[in-house]
């Protein structure tokens, strides 16, 4: 079973999110998932009258465009992803610079690296 999500490129993310806002969608959250290769996959969840719609974005580098300018509420979850995955959101306000939960540069981002029991220890 997989979630039906519209696949988008990072260039068109902001436009797609703004279009959803136009339709009156409530921003739910962003989920970041480790991809098999070095990159990560972002899922943007939106709710409209109890039904969810999703956007799927594959990130290859470290940089992701921030959607804070459209949904200000995204600042918290984007900062969290910066802490956990070591990604960098461009245009994020306020930017805690990986100190939302953790100590910043001291520790490597916990969700980086291979999954499974070996990666967890």
């Amino acid at each position: 079973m997989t979630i039906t999500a519209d696949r988008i490129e990072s260039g068109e993310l902001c436009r797609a999110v703004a279009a959803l806002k136009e339709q009156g969608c409530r921003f739910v959250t962003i989920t970041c998932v480790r991809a098999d290769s070095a990159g990560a996959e972002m899922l943007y969840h939106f709710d409209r009258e109890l039904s969810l719609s999703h956007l799927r974005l594959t990130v290859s580098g470290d940089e992701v465009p921030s959607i804070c300018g459209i949904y200000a509420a995204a600042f918290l979850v984007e900062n969290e992803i910066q802490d956990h995955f070591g990604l960098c959101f461009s245009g994020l306000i306020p930017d805690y610079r990986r100190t939302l939960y953790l100590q910043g540069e001291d520790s490597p981002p916990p969700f980086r690296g291979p999954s499974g029991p070996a990666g967890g220890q």
Partner: protein
Amino acid sequence: MAGTVIPFGPQHPVLPEPLHLNLKIEDEIVISATPAFGYVHRGLEKLADIRDFRQMIQVVERVCGICSMIHALTYCQGLEALMGVEPPPRARFLRVIWSELHRLHSHLLWLGLFADAMGFESLFMQLWKVRERIMDINEATAGNRVILSVNVIGGVRRDLDTGQTGWILSELAEVDKGIKAMGRTILHDYTVQKRTRGKGVLSGKQAMEFGCVGPMLRSCGVAQDMRLLGYAAYCELDFAPVVEQDGDCYARCRVRFAELGQSIDLIRQAIGKLPTGDISVPVKGRPEGEIVARAEQPRGECLYYIKANGGKFLDRLRIRTPTFANIPALTVMLPGIELADVPVVLLSIDPCISCTER
């Protein structure tokens, strides 16, 4: 006083949560508020890497003490959907009963803390006195006061006999009486109204833009309630979301107060319709695929994203708790209010920081 910075939290007697706010105030009016987190971050999502998916039930219960049962419920419902398991009807009704008991005790706890935030100590004590009956029901039926640990994939772990359901109903009648005795104070007392009316106002449009959930949304005219999705046995029970229009602290207080009565009613309905039969079905195999599960917690919508690969451990477990969605709204609610109203407005979102940080 011009330009004083008041450090608020993470250990502040009026704020029961480890959240830090730097409040810049002028003549006791808040100019800006910057939140800081990270005091109780435990990395529970990461724990999914080394605990198998069944053990994770007990882990997600500990995301938040107050909504523990509904966390486990959301997680189990997600996995059930992934594994194609249908819990038996009796289990679905029992899940509603425990969910609503959780909502009752959480809202009573919140109302008490809210009263304490505005210096109404006797109301706080009184509400917690009533809450104690709910905690007793929890302990007698599930074994624990707070972390009920009743959910498994495929059903529930404990059953209720007729003696217990009868006792729950009689206790609930007492709780109902206790709540009604407090109703006029909470809804009509002059000092309470003075402290809550027109404080921390959020319009429906703003609340939607800031992604607010639960009572925060319902207090400003948006009838959003995840229970309408009909999970567990909610599809067979009769209820309508409580909605208020004003969007201030008083409206949030009214919503949560009205939900107390609604929860009692739902438990009565569920006990009345409780079907006979098994409380769980055996579950074999391992989950595979990805899914989003949602449920309504006392604080609002809770979202679980589960990605499994057919192995013992989950690929990714993402938990979006209701407080996490409600905190951004604080950045627009706090500036412009009096310092004395900061605890009231802050508590009106029913913050749960251990939820937020996981």
